[in-house]
């Protein structure tokens, strides 16, 4: 059902955890629907220097979370905002059609964290 890439990210998720003094934190989803993604950002000079996630959800949810952190790390927030859910799914070699609602979360969580960072800047 899942690609090898998905299974690799599920089995060895990159950047799991929390950042205690995060510059931005974003959360999407809710436990009722079975998926929550929370992303923590460390931002220096508009560049994402560190990123961590915590996820409650299925294999796809965990893999997309992991993938999005890998893709965002080192990017400027402008670049990171351009990362789409679709790009994340593609980077994983695709997701089963049934999993579309949960593959539509990882980039959203990242964007929410960036929003949170920007709000704090104001």
């Amino acid at each position, binding site marked *: 059902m*899942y690609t090898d890439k998905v299974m690799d990210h599920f089995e060895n998720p990159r950047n799991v955890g929390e950042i205690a003094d995060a510059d931005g934190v974003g959360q999407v989803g809710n*436990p009722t629907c079975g998926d929550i993604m929370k992303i923590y950002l460390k931002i220096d000079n508009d560049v994402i220097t560190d990123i961590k996630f915590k996820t409650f959800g299925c294999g796809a949810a965990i893999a997309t979370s992991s993938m999005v952190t890998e893709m965002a790390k080192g990017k400027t927030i402008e670049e990171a905002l351009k990362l789409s859910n679709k790009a994340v799914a593609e980077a994983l070699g695709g997701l089963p059609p049934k999993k579309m609602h949960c593959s539509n979360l990882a980039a959203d969580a990242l964007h929410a964290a960036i929003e949170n960072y920007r709000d704090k800047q104001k």
Partner: protein
Amino acid sequence: MVRRVYFDHSATTPVRPEVAEVMQNYLTANFGNPTSLHYFGRQVRKALEEAREKVAAAIGAKPEEIVFTSGGTESDNMAIHGVAMINKNRGNHIITSAVEHHAVINTVKALGKQGFTVTILPVDKYGLVSVEDLANAITDKTILISIMHANNEVGTIQPIEELAAVAREKGIPFHTDAVQSMGKIPVNVDKLGVDLLTISGHKIYGPKGVGALYIRKGTRWRQSLFHGGAQERLRRAGTENVPGIIGLGKACELAVQDLEKESAYLTTLRDKLIKEVMDRISNVRVTGHPTRRLPNHASFCFEFIEGESMLLSLDMKGIAASSGSACTSGSLEPSHVLLAMGIPHELAHGSIRITLGRDNTEADIDYFMEIMPPIVERLRAMSPLDQE
């Protein structure tokens, strides 16, 4: 090679070698069409009727009360549709429960869109239907009650004797889906007091794609799904799945033969499993009834984590289990059974079902207990939910 442990016997079972063996012959050597008058047909007709006797004997029925079908789903559809159609001039009210298999619930709901009124009885936190609720739900328009014998997701065994007695008193046909109970606890149509009963081959170490419907003699029922030839005494059109039926007959025979021994064995294994999970993993809940449950059935909800991710992790270690989590099916709603039992959404997402079978051993449980705690720990460490 990775060690493989199969813990999903409620989803399906392997065909027992004894069953596969008797089937083989009816693929190649004894291949006739049972409708044919000639030697090739007669040989097969005889075997088909012997299989019918075995199935009937296994549930305390008469052979002529057994109709062979393509599986549990067809039997459920056939039972409900057939009773509804013939009785629609008498009344239009159907009663079922909130924890039925989709083959029952979706069939009843489809009738609900065709002029029938449907009452879906609630269940308590153990998944039990109350006899009082049933008695109160019956009206003079009620023409059918369908309540399952044992639940596939949580293993809860309904008080069918008592529920069916209420129906009997009012003269209302009672159907029960015994797909999960067959071969695990005694299933006897007279003791249960039911008028229609569904079984399926592949849950009792028989083949997939074959099932049976018991229809008590005298029950107002009409064949209404298929049209075609005159097979099964006009109750089910289509050339009979002969090897499947032979397999079902053998599987029923063996199931009853081994019931007592196997059920005792599986109960011991299951109790060990439940005990160790509860002892060694925190924030877990057993779902279903503590005692009125299938001997091979253990089901849990693990807090803070999600079912599919547990299944995938177990699968990587060679353990096959299942879940009522919405994420395994890609839908947003978790199992209707768990929700009907009042389990909150987020907890229902963390459900897992371990259903044991005759080839499982204590060593399998030990292996599971070696593998599962670190999985739970790892996934909980990843979870953003508040864990205190």
